[in-house]
């Protein structure tokens, strides 16, 4: 059973979103996603300053086997990306909700995040997907 923290929001494409104290939103991929991908060996994050639309492919995570796109769950401007992943992509496997975060956005309307699934809904979504 994968880990689904209750304080985050989740997308159908398995990104998580955290609203930070400073008003920015932080985005990563879920424990379920990292587990399904397997050992990650390369991560490409968006450059700071880039404007993203909700649903836009903006990062790439590559396991030994395959490359997968990461989609931004909300629109906004990238203010930071996790540069540590360049040399330590395994952080994404080891700590997907912490040190494995991907990028932070100044969201156009941060409330859009609340349109995403909460933890209980995401758990149900995973259960339905597994059937």
């Amino acid at each position, binding site marked *: 059973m994968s880990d689904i923290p209750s304080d985050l929001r989740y997308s159908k494409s398995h990104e998580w979103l955290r609203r930070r104290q400073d008003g920015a939103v932080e985005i990563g991929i879920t424990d379920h996603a990292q587990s399904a991908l397997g050992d990650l060996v390369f991560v490409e994050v968006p450059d700071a300053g880039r404007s993203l639309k909700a649903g836009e492919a903006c990062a790439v995570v590559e396991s030994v086997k395959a*490359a997968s796109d990461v989609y931004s769950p909300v629109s906004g401007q990238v203010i930071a990306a996790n540069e540590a992943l360049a040399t330590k992509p395994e952080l994404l496997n080891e700590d997907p909700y912490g040190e494995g975060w991907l990028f932070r956005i100044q969201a156009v309307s941060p409330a859009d995040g609340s349109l995403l699934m909460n933890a209980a809904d995401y758990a149900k979504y995973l259960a339905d997907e597994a059937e």
Partner: protein
Amino acid sequence: MGLRTSLYDTHVLQGAKIVDFGGWEMPLHYGSQIEEHHAVRRDAGMFDVSHMGVIDLQGARVREFLRSLLANDVGRLKISGAALYSCMLLPSGGVIDDLIAYFVSDTRFRLVVNAGTRDKDIAWIRSHAEGFAVSTVLRADLAIIAIQGPNAREKTVALLPPPQRAAALELRPFRGTAFDSWFIARTGYTGEDGFEVMLPAVDAAQAWNALLAQGIQPAGLGARDTLRLEAGMNLYGNDTDENHHPLESGLAWTVAFEPGDRDFIGRQALQSARLADGGNELVGLLLEDRGVLRSHQKVVVAGSAGKAGASAAPLLGEVTSGTFSPTLNRSIALARVPRTAAPCVQVEIRGKLHAASIVKPPFVRHGKPLIPV
């Protein structure tokens, strides 16, 4: 539901992530593909490869038949248990499959073929065997376990009765021998020492668990792919297929043109190709940047310098297999490129060009990197 080997339930119990592979439900990994890869390079790992086809051939003219069917020459096999790697070709020179042929006796050979090509292989073999009165039997009753790594042989022979241990350890590379219902060969697909064991499928789970108790790490198809690619070995369907002949697939060394009077299927096409200028070849690539090479990525190559009249348009090649190399901590690939390609190329990854060098495989052998990184 896909096809399952006799070890399927064992894999699931041991935590395997199961994927479809050519219609078979096979383990991709048992937790960490990279740890499984390192276990094989540093100690010992084991793979269920029972999905591969074992075909027994029998008949007084079986050697003559295989000398006509295969591009390599089984006439070289003199000792019972000796093995030979070969391509089986279409008249066009395209590769129907790559396989291992074992010489059992003057009237019996055994072929081990790829899982995904098994049915077309059998149809092709049978259509040609009739003329030689050779019978073909698919041995669905057998399982195959490949045990690979520097400590693989020592750990495997612990399962044998003492008198047989020494005999198994004395096997030379590419030789096999039967012990009761087991056939043990010193072959593999990882670039490491080890055995491939063919045994009755009904005994496979017990043997697997006994090997596990010896400290051998179960490894899935994921690690098998990174290991074979580091070892510079082709994967059928990626690096080898019916549209390319062995000489443009890095397999010229497996084609026996001598003796010149052996008329094997595909010979004429290969002789023409050998005399022709230009053409493509299969090379190794080492990615200079970060990122991961993948099959079907475009390779942009500069032609050899000073070629008069060469057009300004860049020549193109294609990655046939690419991955991240856990041993080198870099991305590596096999790619089909024009023979005139200069050693520095560029590979297109998601619309951007990245520098890569042409290198000579293997990338890794017996745990040691062979390519400076």
